[in-house]
């Protein structure tokens, strides 16, 4: 029996569709319980927030989980990541107002960048020669530019609608993120065939 860590966020619906009959029932999902049995009895599920998925898997509280590449890189957990799915596609970008010249700002003073992804933002800005003061926020990062808390943001862009609505544009794309299946190191060896069976479902989301 495998335990799977499912993120509560935007990925969940796609994942449940891919898992098909292995997933939890509608009633269980609606029940607000955090540990759910799968319908076929071969899996059980824990519902956790996206950024917590790597910790559950690393420490063996779940055998495997699914999480966006953005979260995985930000967290740097010691897990295996054998499958890149096509689910939850989005881009991590540096965004600012159209007229903002980031390089000029960085030369003339200290660039202020707001983000939920401190580690990734710091790496990306450094690689581009843009030293910056990072401001950690937990939501609505776009707002930081509107109220002049920051000159730019590093955030996920899915459709670009939120950016447009707030008068921002993508200045640089850092990487494209899709969901990855991650697996506990011990489970990969001790329950390999069971793990493979779940990965196979996630690999073919339309099947």
């Amino acid at each position, binding site marked *: 029996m495998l335990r799977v860590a499912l993120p509560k966020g935007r990925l969940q619906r796609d994942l449940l569709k891919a898992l098909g009959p292995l997933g939890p029932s509608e009633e269980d999902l609606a029940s607000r319980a955090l540990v759910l049995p799968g319908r076929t009895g071969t899996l059980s599920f824990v519902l956790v927030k996206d950024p917590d998925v790597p910790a559950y898997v*690393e*420490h*063996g509280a779940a055998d495997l989980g699914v999480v966006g590449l953005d979260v995985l890189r930000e967290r*740097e*957990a*010691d*897990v*295996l*990541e*054998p*499958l*890149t799915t096509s689910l939850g596609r989005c881009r991590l970008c540096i965004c600012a107002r159209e007229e903002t010249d980031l390089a000029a700002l960085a030369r003339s003073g200290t660039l202020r960048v707001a983000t939920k992804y401190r580690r990734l933002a710091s790496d990306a800005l450094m690689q581009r020669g843009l030293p910056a003061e990072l401001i950690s926020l937990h939501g609505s990062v776009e707002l930081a530019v509107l109220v002049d808390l920051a000159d730019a943001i590093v955030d996920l862009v899915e459709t670009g609608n939120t950016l447009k609505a707030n008068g921002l544009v993508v200045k640089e794309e850092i990487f494209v993120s899709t969901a990855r299946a991650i*697996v*506990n*190191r*011990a*489970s*990969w*060896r*001790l329950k*390999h*065939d069971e793990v493979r069976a779940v990965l196979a479902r996630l690999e073919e989301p339309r099947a």
Partner: protein
Amino acid sequence: MIPWPPFGIVDRLFDEAKLLRSLEETILRTLEARGYREIIVPLLERDGVFSSEEAVRFVDRSGALLGLRPDFTGPVARVVASRLFAVDDVRLSYRGTVFRDHDERSGGRRQVQQAGFEHFGGGTVEEDVDTIRMALDVASALGLPRTTVSVGSAALIEALAPSASRDVRRALDRRDVDLLPPSLKPLVELVGDDALARARETLPPAAQPALERLGDLQKRLRDLGHDLVVDLAEVRPWSYYTGVVFSLYSEGVPRAIGAGGRYDALVGRFGNHRPGVGATFDVDVIARCAKGRA
């Protein structure tokens, strides 16, 4: 202000200290019964002894670059190269603390309690077999009878991707297929009972000698009643391994309880050439699950 230890560095008090020491004792006693005698090696060495980029390094008063040991194999190999090279068959054990400057494999720990053993002989497959059996016997003595050995081969990886960079080895260790060169990508799928058979059919001729040696090892261990999990993506972050590499997983424990492998070129770096093979246990991980059982 209270000077707490730096991140990832910990104190061990009373019951925990006692538990760690008693586990170390069990490991060393089991090893000693089979001819592995304890040596004590320095915590501090010249920088060149360590293969890992993760060693904590600093400069002493004379300007020499020194490091805290990030593992035992380097210092042990130096001792063998300089002081035990004339002895035919060297079996030794050790225990102590190693330090790593940010090792994500150890879960943010920068200090790890280890105990292990090394065998310097003739480089034979029999020694590989003995080493893995010895490691399983130690696990058993520790009360971890349901331990599985996951084996791969550093020689296989060298044959498929000569002088692979640390980034590539790291990507393989994480099974991050997207970052792997084409020659290594198939390894991620080669896990399980039929992995060796599939590998023989699908991997290029350069890979065959390493596969043959692994097959020989698997057969010998099977004849002795030990089953292996073949996982051909098994890789160590350290670059000195040249033959079999393995890690040990016990039921219900989320991390490897130990790991090891063959390194036939390491001793030669310090002088006299000597093949070696060994394994090291992560006493902290074992202590955590021993506490769970108590």
